[in-house]
């Protein structure tokens, strides 16, 4: 290799350093959310990996007894202290078409379903008491560039990313309320748009 001036080395180092700084800063949220993706799709929360486009509900036993830990899988669901809401979590892949999120009638109870863009760790949409009220309903979640027909009367959520992290929270009033919340939570469901068309 030809001899290089020290200044040229400084230029190469400086360029690589600036590029690395930019890339790590830009992709920091993505690296963080990758942990969630792996926890959901690879490790699961004690009952095996969670299939894509499926919501996994936190078992009520873990909420009832905060010292109970899943025997296997990721401990991400039991990390941190939360005594307020039962959670449901899932990872969407919208490349095969949109999904329909069904929510039951929550009768005024606080709940929210948060849609997170994993590349930026920002929440581009919510279904829940604050944004859509507590009545029952279906919501269409479509990926970028999807141009199909939206079922009549169904609100559409356009995701900026084909991958979406979904986190649902339903407020628990008391220990004796837990099984009611669990029953409501079970009705928060995903299904592909295409299936529902074929069924009709």
């Amino acid at each position, binding site marked *: *290799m030809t001899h*290089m001036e*020290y200044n040229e*080395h*400084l230029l*190469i*180092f*400086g*360029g*690589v*350093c*600036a*590029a*690395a*700084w*930019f*890339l*790590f*800063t*830009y992709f*920091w*949220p993505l*690296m*963080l*959310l990758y942990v*969630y993706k792996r926890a959901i799709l690879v490790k699961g929360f004690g009952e095996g990996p969670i299939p894509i486009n499926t919501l996994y509900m936190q078992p009520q036993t873990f909420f009832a007894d*905060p*010292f109970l830990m899943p025997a296997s899988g990721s401990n991400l669901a039991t*990390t*941190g*202290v*939360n*005594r*307020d809401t039962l959670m449901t979590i899932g990872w969407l892949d919208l490349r095969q078409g949109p999904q329909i999120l069904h929510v039951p009638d929550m009768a005024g109870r*606080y709940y*929210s379903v*948060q849609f*997170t*863009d994993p590349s*930026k*760790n*920002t*929440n*581009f949409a*919510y279904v*829940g*008491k*604050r944004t859509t009220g507590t009545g029952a309903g279906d919501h269409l979640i479509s990926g970028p560039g999807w141009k199909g027909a939206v079922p009549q009367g169904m609100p559409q959520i356009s995701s*900026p990313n084909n991958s979406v*992290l979904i*986190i649902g929270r339903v*407020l628990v*009033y*008391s220990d004796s309320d837990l099984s009611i919340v669990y029953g409501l939570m079970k009705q928060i469901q995903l299904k592909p748009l295409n299936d529902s068309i074929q069924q009709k």
Partner: protein
Amino acid sequence: MFNRTTTFLMVFNGAICVFFFIRLFFFSHSRTVLNDVVQGILIGFALAFVTAQIFMRIKATKVNGWITMFGCGVPGNGMLLRAAHAQIFLGPINVPQEAMYWTTSGDGAGRTLSGLHDYIMHFPAGGLPPNNAFWSLTMGNAKNRFVANPINRYSVSDRSGLVPNADGSVEIYIQNAAPAGHESNWLPAPSGRFILWLRVYMPGASILDGEYKVPPIVEVK
């Protein structure tokens, strides 16, 4: 997170970067292109961590010992704010309109919270966190885990039947042993260090505009 380990890591990383730059720019030595690239990536990573940490500390709000950050998770946030968010909250937390989160590991005077002491959190009359959903104050040990206690109470909230004082104010007793006569307002603490989380879901306007101040944790013994 906002703890000593990350502070130490930030300072340590920063010191390495400074040392490296001084050596690089003021003391010429023999170098190869491989050096340039490998060191560029490592130092670039260290600098990304340090700048995100510093930016997080600039953007975070600290009032009465409570730390929070406004504007997390909002679409359109810039690259630096997103990286700072990933530093303070290790997960996809809600946008401010949906929920605000405060945490503290110290009392209002800046001393580390510990079950060796007794504390009171005093909300003046009408001063509970304004919200349209719920609020809660949750106890975690030094590792952010639940704390076992004889009454199986891990948080106090708008649902836990707190008894107000005659003047309408509400006091929460945060201590290891049950406070005689005030059991209904007791949030059990561990014997050692602990942290607290305040959650307010669908926070009121006075929280979102920064007007509402979370009361400090006050040491009484």
